[in-house]
Protein backbone atom coordinates (compact mmCIF):
# COMPACT_ATOMS: atom_id res chain seq x y z
CA UNK A 1 0.00 0.00 0.00
CA UNK A 2 2.81 2.42 0.94
CA UNK A 3 4.72 1.55 -2.26
CA UNK A 4 1.61 2.23 -4.34
CA UNK A 5 1.11 5.53 -2.54
CA UNK A 6 4.75 6.57 -3.13
CA UNK A 7 4.53 5.59 -6.79
CA UNK A 8 1.29 7.51 -7.29
CA UNK A 9 2.76 10.52 -5.50
CA UNK A 10 5.86 10.38 -7.71
CA UNK A 11 3.77 10.12 -10.88
CA UNK A 12 1.60 13.03 -9.76
CA UNK A 13 4.61 15.18 -8.95
CA UNK A 14 6.39 14.35 -12.20
CA UNK A 15 3.23 14.97 -14.23
CA UNK A 16 2.76 18.37 -12.60
CA UNK A 17 6.28 19.40 -13.53
CA UNK A 18 7.26 20.81 -10.12
CA UNK A 19 8.33 24.05 -11.78
CA UNK A 20 5.30 26.17 -11.13
CA UNK A 21 3.68 25.84 -7.72
CA UNK A 22 0.35 27.27 -8.76
CA UNK A 23 0.17 25.03 -11.79
CA UNK A 24 1.14 22.00 -9.72
CA UNK A 25 -1.44 22.88 -7.08
CA UNK A 26 -4.12 23.40 -9.77
CA UNK A 27 -3.31 20.03 -11.33
CA UNK A 28 -3.37 18.27 -7.95
CA UNK A 29 -6.71 19.89 -7.09
CA UNK A 30 -8.09 18.76 -10.45
CA UNK A 31 -6.87 15.21 -9.81
CA UNK A 32 -8.42 15.29 -6.33
CA UNK A 33 -11.77 16.35 -7.81
CA UNK A 34 -11.68 13.45 -10.28
CA UNK A 35 -10.67 10.98 -7.55
CA UNK A 36 -13.56 12.10 -5.32
CA UNK A 37 -15.87 11.61 -8.32
CA UNK A 38 -14.61 8.04 -8.72
CA UNK A 39 -15.00 7.43 -4.97
CA UNK A 40 -18.63 8.62 -5.05
CA UNK A 41 -19.41 6.44 -8.06
CA UNK A 42 -17.98 3.38 -6.30
CA UNK A 43 -19.96 4.13 -3.11
CA UNK A 44 -23.25 4.83 -4.95
CA UNK A 45 -22.82 1.72 -7.08
CA UNK A 46 -22.20 -0.39 -3.95
CA UNK A 47 -25.31 1.06 -2.33
CA UNK A 48 -27.39 0.31 -5.44
CA UNK A 49 -26.16 -3.28 -5.33
CA UNK A 50 -26.97 -3.57 -1.60
CA UNK A 51 -23.32 -3.97 -0.63
CA UNK A 52 -23.48 -0.83 1.50
CA UNK A 53 -26.18 0.15 3.96
CA UNK A 54 -27.81 3.57 3.67
CA UNK A 55 -26.18 4.60 6.97
CA UNK A 56 -22.67 3.75 5.75
CA UNK A 57 -23.37 5.34 2.35
CA UNK A 58 -24.63 8.46 4.11
CA UNK A 59 -21.42 8.69 6.16
CA UNK A 60 -19.18 8.15 3.12
CA UNK A 61 -21.05 10.68 0.96
CA UNK A 62 -21.00 13.26 3.76
CA UNK A 63 -17.24 12.70 3.95
CA UNK A 64 -16.81 13.05 0.16
CA UNK A 65 -19.02 16.13 0.08
CA UNK A 66 -16.81 17.75 2.75
CA UNK A 67 -13.68 16.94 0.72
CA UNK A 68 -15.28 18.39 -2.42
CA UNK A 69 -16.29 21.56 -0.58
CA UNK A 70 -12.73 22.03 0.75
CA UNK A 71 -11.33 21.32 -2.72
CA UNK A 72 -13.72 23.73 -4.40
CA UNK A 73 -12.91 26.46 -1.88
CA UNK A 74 -9.19 25.92 -2.49
CA UNK A 75 -9.76 25.91 -6.27
CA UNK A 76 -11.70 29.15 -6.11
CA UNK A 77 -8.97 30.70 -3.95
CA UNK A 78 -6.22 29.69 -6.40
CA UNK A 79 -8.27 31.06 -9.31
CA UNK A 80 -7.80 34.63 -8.17
CA UNK A 81 -4.06 34.32 -7.61
CA UNK A 82 -1.21 35.38 -9.83
CA UNK A 83 1.42 34.49 -7.22
CA UNK A 84 1.66 32.60 -3.95
CA UNK A 85 2.33 34.78 -0.93
CA UNK A 86 3.04 33.34 2.51
CA UNK A 87 -0.44 34.29 3.71
CA UNK A 88 -2.10 32.69 0.68
CA UNK A 89 -0.09 29.52 1.23
CA UNK A 90 -1.27 29.41 4.86
CA UNK A 91 -4.89 30.00 3.85
CA UNK A 92 -4.83 27.26 1.22
CA UNK A 93 -3.04 24.80 3.48
CA UNK A 94 -5.60 25.43 6.21
CA UNK A 95 -8.31 24.40 3.73
CA UNK A 96 -6.54 21.24 2.59
CA UNK A 97 -5.06 20.12 5.93
CA UNK A 98 -8.34 19.05 7.58
CA UNK A 99 -9.45 17.38 4.34
CA UNK A 100 -6.30 15.25 4.28
CA UNK A 101 -6.70 14.34 7.96
CA UNK A 102 -10.28 13.26 7.20
CA UNK A 103 -9.09 11.12 4.25
CA UNK A 104 -6.40 9.48 6.40
CA UNK A 105 -8.95 8.72 9.10
CA UNK A 106 -11.39 7.19 6.61
CA UNK A 107 -8.65 4.99 5.16
CA UNK A 108 -7.66 3.93 8.66
CA UNK A 109 -11.28 3.30 9.73
CA UNK A 110 -11.92 1.26 6.62
CA UNK A 111 -8.97 -1.03 7.24
CA UNK A 112 -9.95 -1.49 10.89
CA UNK A 113 -13.70 -1.97 10.53
CA UNK A 114 -13.89 -4.19 7.44
CA UNK A 115 -14.08 -7.82 8.56
CA UNK A 116 -11.80 -10.26 6.74
CA UNK A 117 -14.87 -12.26 5.66
CA UNK A 118 -15.94 -9.29 3.53
CA UNK A 119 -12.59 -8.95 1.79
CA UNK A 120 -12.70 -12.60 0.70
CA UNK A 121 -16.22 -12.30 -0.74
CA UNK A 122 -15.75 -11.53 -4.47
CA UNK A 123 -18.45 -8.82 -4.65
CA UNK A 124 -17.60 -6.97 -1.44
CA UNK A 125 -13.89 -7.63 -1.96
CA UNK A 126 -14.02 -5.74 -5.28
CA UNK A 127 -15.90 -2.86 -3.67
CA UNK A 128 -13.34 -2.62 -0.87
CA UNK A 129 -10.45 -2.71 -3.36
CA UNK A 130 -12.10 -0.02 -5.50
CA UNK A 131 -12.93 2.25 -2.58
CA UNK A 132 -9.42 1.88 -1.13
CA UNK A 133 -7.91 2.72 -4.53
CA UNK A 134 -10.11 5.82 -4.86
CA UNK A 135 -9.25 6.93 -1.31
CA UNK A 136 -5.54 6.43 -2.02
CA UNK A 137 -5.86 8.59 -5.14
CA UNK A 138 -7.59 11.33 -3.10
CA UNK A 139 -4.89 11.07 -0.43
CA UNK A 140 -2.10 11.20 -3.02
CA UNK A 141 -3.44 14.17 -4.95
CA UNK A 142 -4.22 16.14 -1.77
CA UNK A 143 -0.67 15.43 -0.55
CA UNK A 144 0.67 16.61 -3.92
CA UNK A 145 -1.34 19.84 -3.59
CA UNK A 146 0.07 20.40 -0.10
CA UNK A 147 3.63 19.81 -1.30
CA UNK A 148 3.14 22.21 -4.22
CA UNK A 149 1.82 24.89 -1.88
CA UNK A 150 4.56 24.42 0.70
CA UNK A 151 7.48 24.65 -1.74
Amino acid at each position, binding site marked *: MKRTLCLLLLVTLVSTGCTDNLKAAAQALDETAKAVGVF*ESVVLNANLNHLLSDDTTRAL*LTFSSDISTAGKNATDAVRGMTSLTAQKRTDLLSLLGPALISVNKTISDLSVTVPSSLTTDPRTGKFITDVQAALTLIQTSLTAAQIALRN
Partner: protein
Amino acid sequence: METALALVQLFNLASPAVADLVLMIRKKDGGVTIVALLDEASAQYQDNINKAQDWLALHKKA
Protein backbone atom coordinates in the same frame (compact mmCIF):
# COMPACT_ATOMS: atom_id res chain seq x y z
CA MET B 1 -0.84 45.59 -23.35
CA GLU B 2 -2.40 48.00 -20.87
CA THR B 3 -4.92 49.11 -23.48
CA ALA B 4 -5.76 45.52 -24.30
CA LEU B 5 -6.34 44.77 -20.63
CA ALA B 6 -8.49 47.86 -20.23
CA LEU B 7 -10.60 46.82 -23.23
CA VAL B 8 -10.98 43.30 -21.91
CA GLN B 9 -11.99 44.65 -18.52
CA LEU B 10 -14.66 46.76 -20.21
CA PHE B 11 -16.00 43.70 -22.01
CA ASN B 12 -15.81 41.86 -18.72
CA LEU B 13 -18.55 44.08 -17.37
CA ALA B 14 -20.89 42.59 -19.93
CA SER B 15 -19.66 39.01 -20.01
CA PRO B 16 -18.48 36.98 -17.01
CA ALA B 17 -16.70 34.58 -19.37
CA VAL B 18 -14.18 37.27 -20.22
CA ALA B 19 -13.04 37.26 -16.58
CA ASP B 20 -11.10 34.09 -17.33
CA LEU B 21 -9.54 35.79 -20.34
CA VAL B 22 -8.31 38.61 -18.09
CA LEU B 23 -6.79 36.05 -15.75
CA MET B 24 -5.20 34.24 -18.69
CA ILE B 25 -3.56 37.44 -19.91
CA ARG B 26 -2.40 38.37 -16.43
CA LYS B 27 -0.83 35.04 -15.56
CA LYS B 28 2.73 34.91 -16.80
CA ASP B 29 3.61 31.24 -17.15
CA GLY B 30 1.16 28.49 -17.95
CA GLY B 31 -1.76 30.79 -17.25
CA VAL B 32 -4.03 29.22 -19.82
CA THR B 33 -3.33 25.76 -18.47
CA ILE B 34 -3.97 26.85 -14.89
CA VAL B 35 -7.30 28.46 -15.74
CA ALA B 36 -8.42 25.42 -17.73
CA LEU B 37 -7.41 23.11 -14.87
CA LEU B 38 -9.19 25.23 -12.29
CA ASP B 39 -12.34 25.40 -14.43
CA GLU B 40 -12.31 21.64 -14.83
CA ALA B 41 -11.63 21.04 -11.13
CA SER B 42 -14.29 23.50 -10.00
CA ALA B 43 -16.94 21.91 -12.25
CA GLN B 44 -15.98 18.42 -11.08
CA TYR B 45 -16.11 19.43 -7.40
CA GLN B 46 -19.54 20.99 -7.91
CA ASP B 47 -20.73 17.86 -9.71
CA ASN B 48 -19.44 15.72 -6.80
CA ILE B 49 -21.18 17.93 -4.25
CA ASN B 50 -24.46 17.85 -6.20
CA LYS B 51 -24.32 14.07 -6.60
CA ALA B 52 -23.71 13.52 -2.88
CA GLN B 53 -26.31 16.07 -1.79
CA ASP B 54 -28.95 14.64 -4.16
CA TRP B 55 -28.49 11.17 -2.67
CA LEU B 56 -28.44 12.51 0.89
CA ALA B 57 -31.64 14.48 0.28
CA LEU B 58 -33.39 11.35 -1.00
CA HIS B 59 -32.13 9.18 1.86
CA LYS B 60 -32.59 11.26 4.97
CA LYS B 61 -31.89 9.51 8.25
CA ALA B 62 -35.12 8.26 9.78
